[in-house]
């Protein structure tokens, strides 16, 4: 398909602008000539209709949650309610400047204040900052607070952060950015944190541990109380990567599990859309002892019931982005909480877990299931058996495209070979699950009977399998005439 630049014809435009209605002056008299552009930027020249058609055609080369089943593990691709899109677009929300005086933005502040309360309740934390823009940003913010906490107690030597080998890549990367020293520990045979490994790693240098719970295998860390005890008694803190909160909302809280800090992904568990890669929102919640370190500002309420932005927070780590976070995303997630209520959120978690267990049970005869036990909202299969027959997990994923499904997350977590991480979410019905099971079984059969068909998949997409090596070897990262 043509690039927009290849459709450009000099003289076309997609916008009509008003004439200048103020007395004009020569540009060169306002801006020194040496500061001015000699040539216009090479932007496309197309009419509005051509632009509309171009981007619509592009959209048809994409797969969204409304297109079909999207069991992308760890990403919680649940349905994104339409009304929330409308709500976030109310001009009382979109047409508001972040620096307006507080008395003119009471609605925004009230919403942020209540969202802090809701998320605190759901996580068992004291306060929540809505500033981080995504999960990884929440991790970084949380780790910074942990480090600041230790520094404030005169224990700045605590720089060691323990991360299991099953963790998401953002965990070690965030630790690095927070200036912490990473200690990666191996997961135990049952797919959970190995307590002996943990005890070996914990000492007086430990700042804390980062744990995803349920973990990236979809398993609940049942030893969490003991883990918390080990880390806390050594003076460390517990960070919860809450990417997998969809399994536990309304059922248990990270606070009750013993975590000191948690981030949530509103673009996963709280039905805000992922936008093809963002914007997300990664609020971070903390218990009382860490609250002074939260980014500034926080929204507070005055005696007269009005809301304000509190910047006077001397122990705060500062700011991690401008303004107050991805407000528009927070609006959608808040609308979601209102429509679900506590019972609905709990029901969602239960259905998500039921859907996952149902799929797991029905697929485990056809694919390897390295950790065969009750799962939470997702589970991880291995394509090991198929690999021995010369078909790898990537091939299986690509073949699923031909069946009209978005593939699961593949090759993650790293501790499972040929991993297929499947997360159905609660918004999928039984019929969809049955059809997906059927497709997975059929592909398993194809691996035996027509392996080439799987190896060369996909056969039905707008482009065939793309050459990643070529892309990286001689990078072409922009169009040139």
């Amino acid at each position, binding site marked *: 398909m043509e690039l927009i630049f290849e459709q450009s014809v000099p003289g076309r435009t997609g916008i009509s602008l008003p004439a200048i209605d103020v007395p004009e002056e020569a540009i060169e008299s306002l801006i020194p000539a040496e500061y001015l552009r000699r040539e216009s*930027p090479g932007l*496309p020249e197309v009419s509005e209709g051509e632009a509309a058609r171009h981007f619509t055609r592009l959209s048809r080369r994409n797969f969204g949650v409304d297109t079909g089943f999207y069991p992308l593990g760890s990403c919680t691709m649940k349905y994104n309610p339409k009304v929330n899109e409308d709500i976030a677009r109310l001009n009382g929300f979109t047409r508001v400047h972040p620096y307006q005086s507080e008395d003119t933005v009471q609605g925004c502040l009230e919403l942020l204040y209540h969202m802090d309360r809701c998320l605190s309740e759901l996580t068992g934390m004291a306060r929540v900052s809505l500033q981080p823009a995504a999960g990884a940003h929440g991790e970084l913010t949380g780790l910074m607070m942990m480090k600041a906490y230790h520094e404030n107690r005169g224990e700045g030597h605590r720089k060691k952060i323990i991360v299991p080998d099953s963790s998401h*890549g953002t965990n070690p990367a965030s630790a690095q950015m927070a200036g912490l020293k990473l200690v990666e520990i191996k997961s135990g045979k049952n797919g959970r944190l190995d307590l002996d490994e943990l005890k070996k790693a914990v000492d007086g240098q430990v700042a804390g541990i980062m744990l995803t719970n349920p973990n990236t295998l979809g398993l609940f860390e049942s030893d969490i109380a003991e883990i918390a005890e080990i880390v806390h008694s050594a003076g460390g803190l517990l960070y919860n990567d809450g990417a997998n909160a969809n399994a536990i909302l309304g059922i248990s809280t990270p606070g009750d599990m013993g975590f000191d800090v948690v981030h949530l992904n509103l673009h996963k568990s709280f039905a805000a859309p992922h936008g093809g890669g963002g914007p997300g929102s990664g609020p971070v919640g903390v218990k009382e002892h860490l609250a002074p370190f939260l980014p500034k500002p926080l929204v507070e309420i005055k005696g007269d019931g009005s809301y304000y932005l509190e910047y006077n927070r001397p122990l705060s780590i500062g700011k991690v982005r401008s303004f107050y976070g991805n407000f528009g995303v927070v609006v959608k997630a808040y609308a979601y909480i209102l429509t679900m209520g506590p019972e609905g959120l709990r029901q969602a978690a239960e259905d998500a877990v039921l859907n996952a267990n149902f799929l797991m049970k029905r697929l485990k005869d056809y694919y390897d299931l390295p950790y065969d036990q009750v799962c939470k909202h997702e589970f991880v299969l291995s394509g090991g058996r198929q690999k021995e027959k010369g078909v790898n997990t990537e091939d299986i994923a690509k073949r699923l495209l031909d069946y009209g499904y978005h593939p699961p997350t593949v090759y993650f977590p790293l501790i499972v070979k040929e991993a297929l991480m499947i997360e159905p979410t609660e918004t999928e019905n039984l019929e969809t699950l049955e059809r997906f099971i059927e497709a997975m079984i059929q592909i398993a059969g194809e691996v035996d009977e027509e392996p080439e068909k799987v190896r060369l998949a996909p056969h039905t997409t707008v482009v065939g399998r793309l050459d990643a090596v070529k892309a990286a070897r001689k990078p072409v990262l922009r169009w040139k005439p």
Partner: protein
Amino acid sequence: MYPYLPITSEDRRRMLQAVGVEAIEELFVDIPSVMRCKGRLNLPGPLSEMEMARHMKALAGKNKNLDDNPCFLGAGAYDHYVPSIINHILLRQEFYTAYTPYQPEVSQGTLQAFFEYQTMICELTGMEVSNASVYDGASALAEAVAMACQATRRGEVLLSRAVHPEARQVVKTYSHFSSVNVKELGYQNGLTGAGEAEELINNQTSAIVVQNPNFFGALEELAKFAELAHRHKALLIVSADPIALGLLKPPGESGADIVVGEGQPLGNPLSFGGPYFGFMATTEKLMRRLPGRIVGQTADSEGNRGFILTLQAREQHIRREKATSNICSNQALCALAAAVYLTVLGKKGLRQVAELCLQKAHYTYRSLLETGKFASTFTAPFFKEFAVTGQEDAAVVNARLMENKIIGGYPLARDYPELKNALLIAVTENRTRDEIDRLVKYSVAT
């Protein structure tokens, strides 16, 4: 009962049976009972769609919005016009409900749009390589500082005080934790002190960081800072206003090594501060140090052109703690809005918008000075935003403006105590002459 939950009680019964358990509780036995939520959580809802919408409209109604109150507030977030087409494109479910394009064969829409976006950012900034966005302009600047320190293996930066105060705070937060030493450069007449930079730069300086137009709206002499930085084998990082780049020389041409900026002005609503996006571009030499997603062109086995996430050896999912950054999700849909915006404006439209801003801002500036109640705070050339110093407290001026349904400028004393009574006024193409005249009228006490 819940419109988003299709599983019926009959389904549940059948599924539990298939799984081999009697009750849903059995699927949660791995969560110790002491950790189970007891009683009803203290949350609002559940509300029907109608009730929820009514509640949210009431909240939105408590805000004074810019449709009713013309806005002269900028300071890093601008009331530029957002063409109608953008929302229609963003609301295509194929775009907004998709995840990051991990499976390129079914994500060519997002990937090609990013490739086009990257090209546009390169064109605007005069740089060779762009990523597919980061969180916002401030975090883009912090990422750029980290990138410069990695690239030069040095641990200090010179950061102009004429850079957005919030962006400076974010740079300082990130830098504190990664042990980067931030030294601030003062300003004179609204411009970054070049002499001071000359004095402070040394063989530990990784980069000089300036903003253009800077926080005061004034235009910096970028080439001078580029020359100084390069003479000391340091980099020049420029934070730029993308609308200004319709008119101004691209920072790349002045010698910038990394160009970042707040992308909000490109087709994204103000939305009380977010979601926005940070753009980030650099040279080919530094391309492998860029954080975030980058889309590259490739082909399938039949030679059809296609696009794919590339140079992933920089990223957290491959390199973990050795990655250039921890960023995973970015601000994709906001970047798509920018791509649509720059497409419909095109070559001429962007320049026209920039000229409208320039002329209207200067008209506003002249008119305010003509009242005799305001003096120029600085005399450096500016683009769409400028500072004036009044005779009353900025809050008094703004309160009077608000009474007359006008959102006034940014009180600079908030961040610069030395700039008492100074207001930073932004004028976009969205302001009419009538609105400007009203601003001028009510800025003055009667």
